[in-house]
């Protein structure tokens, strides 16, 4: 097991190098001068050039890139934000917490609703219930995120005053962002659960359980559900990963200081150390989450234990996520 984990962690390095290289490339291409952004629009050209020298912005891209990577590797220093001067790491970690909480909450909401709807529509196959579930789950996937967000604010904050409209000064501020992101993912969870349940219900061991005299409900919840959850867990894992950095639109509408908003603001302010640091940290979090998700499958599906531990050789017939 340890060898597998180390292999996955080593894989992280090329990814991080790739991410930082591409962002460096994008940085040089994007117009708008960071030095000008720091000094404000009234600074003179000489002052701007002087700051560019000081920040090493005039060095060739490769030199800047090597220096950046060296700093991270040797001192774990992700550079400091042009805007506030704080080290990028200390700015991002609390925001990672906020985004993390919202993502976990959103995925939980999406998964729970999705799985329940998926099971219902699997058990009630070909009835009007199945089509109704399909329509409901499709609905939230068909409306742009920020429309859902603004409508939720209007209903729950403006009219009902139950929840704060923006900001997370109080814990209740987390609820609406979670619900918005969660609802959008309900459709995919419903579909995965439904098809996985149908597949499992057709398996022989379900018939064996029936032959034992087991009740339909127990068969659904003890036998079928647990097996059906494997592909669902895989999709939860992957979506947990990529929605960490993805909540930009939602974080902007709700004014939530998450990682997504931090990167968007940094891009607008041409605050490149923050953009780079943010993207790298998200890449790291992404890989670690995917690793944790893969390992947790072993707890759910013992069959994977042998494939995972035996050097991760994937059988060609493995059901890819």
């Amino acid at each position: 097991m340890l060898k597998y984990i180390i292999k996955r962690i080593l894989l992280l390095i090329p990814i991080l190098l790739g991410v930082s290289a591409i962002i460096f490339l994008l940085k040089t291409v994007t117009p708008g001068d960071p030095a000008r952004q720091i000094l404000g629009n009234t600074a003179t050209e000489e002052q701007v050039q002087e700051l560019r020298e000081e920040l090493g912005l005039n060095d060739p891209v490769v030199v800047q890139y090597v220096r950046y990577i060296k700093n991270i590797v040797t001192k774990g220093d992700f550079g400091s934000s042009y805007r506030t001067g704080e080290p990028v790491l200390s700015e991002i970690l609390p925001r990672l917490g906020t985004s993390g909480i919202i993502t976990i909450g959103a995925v939980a909401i999406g998964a729970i609703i999705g799985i329940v709807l998926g099971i219902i529509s699997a058990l009630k196959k070909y009835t009007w219930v199945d089509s109704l579930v399909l329509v409901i789950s499709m609905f939230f996937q068909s409306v742009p995120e920020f429309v859902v967000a603004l409508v939720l604010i209007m209903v729950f904050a403006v009219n009902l005053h139950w929840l704060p409209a923006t900001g997370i000064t109080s814990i209740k501020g987390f609820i609406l962002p979670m619900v918005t992101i969660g609802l959008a993912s309900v459709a995919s969870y419903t579909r995965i659960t439904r098809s996985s349940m149908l597949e499992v219900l057709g398996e022989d061991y379900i018939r064996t359980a029936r032959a034992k005299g087991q009740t339909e409900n127990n068969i659904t919840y003890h036998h079928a559900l647990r097996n059906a959850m494997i592909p669902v867990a895989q999709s939860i894992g992957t979506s947990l990963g990529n929605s960490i950095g993805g909540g930009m639109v939602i974080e902007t509408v709700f004014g939530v200081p998450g990682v997504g908003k931090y990167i968007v603001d940094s891009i607008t302010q041409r605050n490149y150390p923050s953009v780079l640091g943010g993207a790298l940290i998200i890449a790291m979090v992404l890989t670690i989450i995917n690793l944790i998700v893969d390992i947790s499958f072993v707890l759910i599906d013992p069959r994977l234990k042998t494939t995972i531990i035996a050097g991760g050789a994937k059988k060609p017939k493995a059901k890819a996520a």
Partner: protein
Amino acid sequence: MSDTLLSVKDLVIHYETEDEVVEAVNKISFDIKKGEVLGLVGETGAGKTTTALGILGLLPAKVGHVIQGSIELEGKDLLKLSEKEMRQIRGKKISMIFQDPMTALNPVKTVGDQIAEVVLLHNQCSKAEALKRAQEMLAMVGIVPERYKDYPHQFSGGMKQRIVIAIALACEPELLIADEPTTALDVTIQAQILDMMRKLQKEQGTSVILITHDLGVVAEMCDNCAVMYGGELVEYGTLEQVFDNPKHPYTRALYKSIPSLDKDVERLEVIPGLVPDPSDLPEYCSFFERCSEKCDKCNKYDPVSTEVEPGHYAKCLQYMKEWEG
């Protein structure tokens, strides 16, 4: 009557889909006594498995329908029972084992749990006692009891079939239906499984319906033998009657097609033609197209199973008065 465990009368089962209706089982009647091993023989598509599923009430929902007939277990007609009552019988009074052991066990639960489950379902006892019973059953089927904590994928095909048998016999059922238990296994393992089944059957006095298409297995295991063709019981009798003195043309054709050691034959005899299409069965005798002993009346009447000799029945016009007339 007292020692009859199960009696099936005029059982008809159809599979109704949007495009066609499959007449899987057509008016079958037979009885099983306590401790008797009945071999149910026939080619694939003859309705063997459907009969078994009909007895246990496990026909696929919305598609499988019992059109008529009765299945009486100790005087109670199973077809009239509610789902709840039927559940008390499954696994307790009647249990079933299936053909492919590789997929018959739940991959994410330990084998101990899966055996204990049927014990817990039918007896008031604690989980620990059920697990102890599970270990006894594992020992009975020849598996090291300590392995009850392992998962199905850690066992070979043969071992898995033993576990399935352990599950089926855990509550000492009165009737065990085995649907081609050894077909998916290779011959050596097949012999071990069959020996073990016969040993357990003798110890617990369980009646068994052994569904197979392998006459050798029937010869080895069964007391009586029932031959099925086109969803009908074409011949029924004791092993000696059916094997040594087959009455129905289909049974006779079956024996001719078995390669025997003492006769060296250039080509094996083959029954010409194909198994009838169950969604388009003839009104007359289903074996008519392929029968070598037929006469011109055979495509006018649908023969009824007649008692050719005590306890030996055959469904063929030869043994009915219309044959001469």
